[in-house]
């Protein structure tokens, strides 16, 4: 299976490494043409405003929305989660709107407030997941079709709606492959 990583800006290599470690071919996606070659897509962390603008210039935003609506699995981490959200608190920035959530950007604060924490994630077995939150967003509201997969205190930090998976943290900055394996599994 060919797995695309949106490569407009952000932590692209880290996701490509995870994809390779899971035993799949990772492909950089910069254009709508690249997107046609892949069966799944990961949208990495980075700056959501930057990635959104760059996606729009060459029509990649529309292509992603179309593939997402057709059911292609898409996983967004941090900025990727913001871009996939339907609503972004106090912002009219570009988004793909494929998951019915309201997110707040930089919701835990600035970089000095960035943190690591152990997280219980519903779809994973074994020990808690060491989650890396960097100027992270969280989910303030979810629609009725959205499954909540992880919370930190009362804040939702991971969720799924059918083919769309989002996390507020960065599994690609750890050596723990479990979330990528979950997203890339045959019956995801």
């Amino acid at each position: 299976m060919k797995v695309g990583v949106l490569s407009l800006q952000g932590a692209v290599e880290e996701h490509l490494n995870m994809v390779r470690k899971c035993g799949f071919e990772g492909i950089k996606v910069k254009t709508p043409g690249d997107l046609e070659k892949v069966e799944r897509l990961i949208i990495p962390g980075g700056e959501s405003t930057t990635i959104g603008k760059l996606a729009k210039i060459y029509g990649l935003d529309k292509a992603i929305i179309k593939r997402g609506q057709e059911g292609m699995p898409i996983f967004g981490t941090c900025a990727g989660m913001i871009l996939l959200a339907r609503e972004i608190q106090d912002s009219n920035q570009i988004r793909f709107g494929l998951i019915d959530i309201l997110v707040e950007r930089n919701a835990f604060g600035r970089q000095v407030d960035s943190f690591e924490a152990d997280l219980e994630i519903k779809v994973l077995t074994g020990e808690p997941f060491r989650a890396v939150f960097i100027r992270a967003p969280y989910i303030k509201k979810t629609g009725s079709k959205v499954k909540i997969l992880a919370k930190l205190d009362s804040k939702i930090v991971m969720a799924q709606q059918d083919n769309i998976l989002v996390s507020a943290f960065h599994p690609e900055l750890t050596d723990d492959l479990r979330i990528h394996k979950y997203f890339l599994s045959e019956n995801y």
Partner: protein
Amino acid sequence: MIEKGTYRLKKGLAEMLKGGVIMDVVSAEQAKIAEEAGAVAVMALERVPADIRAAGGVARMADPKIIKEIMKAVSIPVMAKVRIGHFVEAQVLEALGVDYIDESEVLTPADEKYHINKHNFKVPFVCGARNLGEALRRIGEGAAMIRTKGEPGTGNIVEAVRHMRQVMDEIRKLKNMPKEELMSMAKELGAPFELLQEVAKNGRLPVVNFAAGGIATPADAALMMQLGADGIFVGSGIFKSKDPVKRARAIVEATTHYNNPEIIAKVSEGLGEAMKGIEISKIEAAARMQDRGW
């Protein structure tokens, strides 16, 4: 257990900036223009390097008022500069809550012998380097991101190219070096041995490496990316040009599509005049910013 200020978090933010452009700004208004153009972060300053060079005198950390206004104006990360070795300016910036500190040769050094012990801070640091030894010394002191020094405020790419080539060349040499030669290499470069071993093993710096110092055009940015930079700092190049909005957008696009000459050609069209720039040999030795730092 919740942990803050870990090295992984510090390095991690730089990793999120990869493939992006960080722009120097001197006001909230400029910061908004930069964000609107697609900058991944802004560097808050009182003067861009070209004006620091022109003004002369002692260049210091920016007024906290300007930094706070810029932090309020944009949602992207805000960086700010401190003088080399001036750990109190760094404490002030950490207290203000800036997202990254640049211990920078653009400002007048406060210490002629020692850099800041960057491990002491929760906020991450970026530092300039001309070669691998300098990069690894800064990382040894706790820097979580490296950039070439180039020659700031000149609009002349030649020094940034030299520094990026130098670092990449030394990394390539290390990769093929027998293990018994590494210690002598560490001595020669003045680099911490453990970090040198890590570079030899992985074939890259342990942190993100951006290009800075002299980038003025979309093609300059793409050149640095093709030479191996992880991303781009543009100092004077944007707001000292004729049409900052258009140029900023073009540099952002060229940085993403650095391997696509058609796109670089398209975005380079009709940008208006770039900053004038300075021939490096016309700068007297004492005014060369890249020689600051030890």
